[in-house]
């Protein structure tokens, strides 16, 4: 019986090891945002990475939607920029970090930009406040004529 148990335990460690290695291989992805097509690519990549962390389907959709909003803002207001996706760890917690950054015009009034309904493009003004609700952590830095960086995270429940 003891002989039986040991190989099993060993197999379990081996497989969990290789699973971790596989996840490590591509735990960061960088997508350059130059046109609306890159928005689709960025959210697909985000979904791929997040699904490996074991997020539920609902969470995957929330994450993909958030990436879409951030990448759309880059295309609309800064023309080009970058989206960095990576898996993160904090103690036992694992999560996905999304950083959307550009060197565009920046946001003059951050307080207002984070309010529902504020838009300079006659849109709905739901992107930024919506992303805040979709993700667990939200941080935004913007400097006039320098650019904007939005960093968000979602943790696997």
């Amino acid at each position, binding site marked *: 019986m003891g002989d039986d148990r040991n190989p099993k335990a060993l197999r379990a460690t081996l497989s969990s090891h290789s699973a971790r290695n596989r996840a490590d291989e591509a735990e960061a992805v960088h997508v350059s945002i130059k046109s*609306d*097509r890159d928005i*689709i690519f960025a*959210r*697909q990549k985000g*979904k791929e990475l997040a699904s490996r962390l074991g997020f539920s*389907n*609902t969470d*995957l*959709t*929330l994450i*993909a*939607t958030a990436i*879409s*909003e951030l990448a*759309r803002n880059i295309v609309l207001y800064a023309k080009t920029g970058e989206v960095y996706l990576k898996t993160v760890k904090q103690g036992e917690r694992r999560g996905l970090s999304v950083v959307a950054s550009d060197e565009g015009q920046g946001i003059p009034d951050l307080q207002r930009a984070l309010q*529902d309904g504020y838009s300079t493009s006659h*849109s*709905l003004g*739901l*992107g930024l*406040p*919506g992303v805040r*609700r*979709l993700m667990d952590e939200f941080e935004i830095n913007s400097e006039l004529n320098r650019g904007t960086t939005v960093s968000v995270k979602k943790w696997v429940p």
Partner: protein
Amino acid sequence: MEVPILKQGPYLIASIQSALSDEDLVQLRDALVAQVGKLRSRGVIVDVTALDVMDSFATRTLRDIAHMIRLRGAEMVIVGIQPEVAFALVRLGLKLEGVATALDLEEGILYLNRKMGESGKEMKHRGR
């Protein structure tokens, strides 16, 4: 990828197959608005079952298309919004106000049939 549009009786059915680029959305809008006139369609069904993400841009564009279709004298109904997508839309704060939705294609057709019945009755009533 272009969205195929099928004519079924008095209705047009547009089945979105995969994530749409802006170009695809514009093409869909122009095609629907034109076809409604050409084929004298009374209703339009846009099937989004295959969409795994609907962001604020896609939603706003679909809403605009629905309003344009109404201005052309037809009704539009969006069918097949997935449960996860519905959840994300609510979180985002998107309401899709003034746009009809139905569970699936079948329900969408029933919805349009009902609408056509109503407007038919209304017209008869006015005629009297």
